[in-house]
């Protein structure tokens, strides 16, 4: 056995400055990909049949921008309904009361089992199915009274169709998230005297968020595009606004490209937002870096500075 004598200070070794491994293969591949990319962009940009002038002319057009606003409104409202409804349904589904969990199961069965397109159309025609709607005591006083014609505009029908359908999908995502949380967490909170509702809100859901957010980001991006189904009830979202134009001008491809580019811009923004949400709810666990942060850290290491 050898003992180190703590009283003799040891010389600190010089820091290692090794030459990093050179990945020549990667550089060749990168050059090749770069060449193909430049070629593709060049040939698309110079192909007149893509109608770049038309795209340019219509890109910032007022009607298109209005369509974008409608698409965003629909997406935001439908996702809000989806998330709130989804959490509610998931919590109901996990309730010990069989009636409550049965109702939640039935809801998911119906709304997930039928095409969302059909649901949107049904909501739009609800005025034909149920012209008036009153709530009260039979043969007694009515408390509320709706006229479906005034209430269900195309926009409302779109929100209901998309939002209620989304709630069914979100409930499964939320339920998976809740089930992913270690049961020891609820147990510890129960032992502290917390109520079921408080445990859900303060302990379980914040942890479930880590599992819930990535698929929810997916759903939001998907909703941005699914919302274009409302064109069947003549609601002028981004896609429908574009269709109106090309039905008149017959410039179908350029106009669809206008819409596609805008959809891409919006999904890109959502992707960035999702990253920061994930990082927020991942606090207390390993932190993730943005691609930019990773790139900068990498450069620092290569240039010999500490990250």
């Amino acid at each position, binding site marked *: 056995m050898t003992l180190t004598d703590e009283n003799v200070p040891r010389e600190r070794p010089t820091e290692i400055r090794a030459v990093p491994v050179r990945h020549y293969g990667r550089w060749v591949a990168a050059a090749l990909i770069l060449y193909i990319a430049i070629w593709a962009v060049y040939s698309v940009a110079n192909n007149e049949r893509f109608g770049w002038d038309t795209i340019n002319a219509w890109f910032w057009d007022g009607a298109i921008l209005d369509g974008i606003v409608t698409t965003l409104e629909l997406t935001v409202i439908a996702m809000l309904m989806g998330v709130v409804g989804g959490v509610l349904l998931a919590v109901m589904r996990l309730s010990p009361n069989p009636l409550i969990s049965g109702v939640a199961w039935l809801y998911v069965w119906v709304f997930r089992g039928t095409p969302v397109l059909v649901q949107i159309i049904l909501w739009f025609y609800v005025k034909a199915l149920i012209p008036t709607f009153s709530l009260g005591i039979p043969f007694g006083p009515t408390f509320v009274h709706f006229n479906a014609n005034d209430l269900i505009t195309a926009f409302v029908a779109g929100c209901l169709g998309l939002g209620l359908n989304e709630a069914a999908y979100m409930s499964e995502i939320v339920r998976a998230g809740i089930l992913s949380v*270690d049961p*020891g*967490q609820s*147990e*510890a*909170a*129960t*032992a*502290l*005297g*917390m*109520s*079921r509702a*408080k445990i859900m809100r*303060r*302990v379980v859901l*914040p*942890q479930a968020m880590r599992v819930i957010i990535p698929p929810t980001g997916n759903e939001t991006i998907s909703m941005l595009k699914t919302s274009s189904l409302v064109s069947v009830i003549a609601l002028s979202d981004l896609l429908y606004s574009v269709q109106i134009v090309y039905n008149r001008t017959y410039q179908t491809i350029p106009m669809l490209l206008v819409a596609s580019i805008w959809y891409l811009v919006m999904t890109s923004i959502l992707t960035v937002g999702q990253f920061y949400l994930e990082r927020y*709810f991942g*606090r*207390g*666990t*390993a932190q993730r870096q943005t691609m930019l942060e990773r790139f900068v850290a990498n450069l620092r290491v290569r240039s010999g500075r500490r990250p």
Partner: protein
Amino acid sequence: MALSKPSPEAGAGAEPPEFMVRAENVHKSFGRLEVLKGIDLEVRPGEVMVVVGPSGSGKSTFLRCINHLEKINGGRLWVNGHLVGYRQKGDRLHEMRDREVAAQRRDIGMVFQRFNLFPHMTALGNVMEAPVQVKGLPRAQVRKQAVQLLERVGLADKTDSYPSQLSGGQQQRVAIARALAMEPALMLFDEPTSALDPELVGEVLEVMKQLAVDGMTMIVVTHEIGFAREVGDSLVFMDGGVVVEKGRPRDIIDNPQHPRTQDFLSKVL
């Protein structure tokens, strides 16, 4: 640490009940598996009772019955003079509402083998959670007490750390502070050191020992025979869902009467 006052229905007068915990022929089954087959025992206020026994003997289940995480199927169980989870009217038992059961649990702190800290809250947040959310006390006041509690378990410098940034021993000490924040009259420990690296066991036992010196009533399930001998006022050996032997720790450890106790102790010592 002050004992919480017994409520009026515990009996006439304001003196604390004679027993902090009293179990009378407690039975518990999971489906057809009978896990507790008639447990009788008493814990006096200020007593430290150590429970030992082989795996599967029902130690955890018994602790969980005490704060009604499990419903008992037979017998009677009182904590601090109150029947756990039920109200007696005449000769019939009535189940308590969730809210009433939750109120009962506030007098009982529990520490788990796997700590079960809330990973999305800092050490301070973990300790503050229940007083703020359950008792509705003002944050500023709770914060001061929580900092003091963390000091008491030797973690004054870790208030802002998340559980993932703490060692096992530190996490378990935060968990003890979290339970103490509700000012319980009784603390339950379910193998608080068996998930820890050997060199971290000591720091947790030290905190528990200090707690015992301060007069806390404790039931401790553990395999740390040294702790039982040094800190325990009484020792219970459980096997197969029954109490096989109970008495003063020294007597049982040095001179076990029952062959099953002898067998068990020869393995852990």
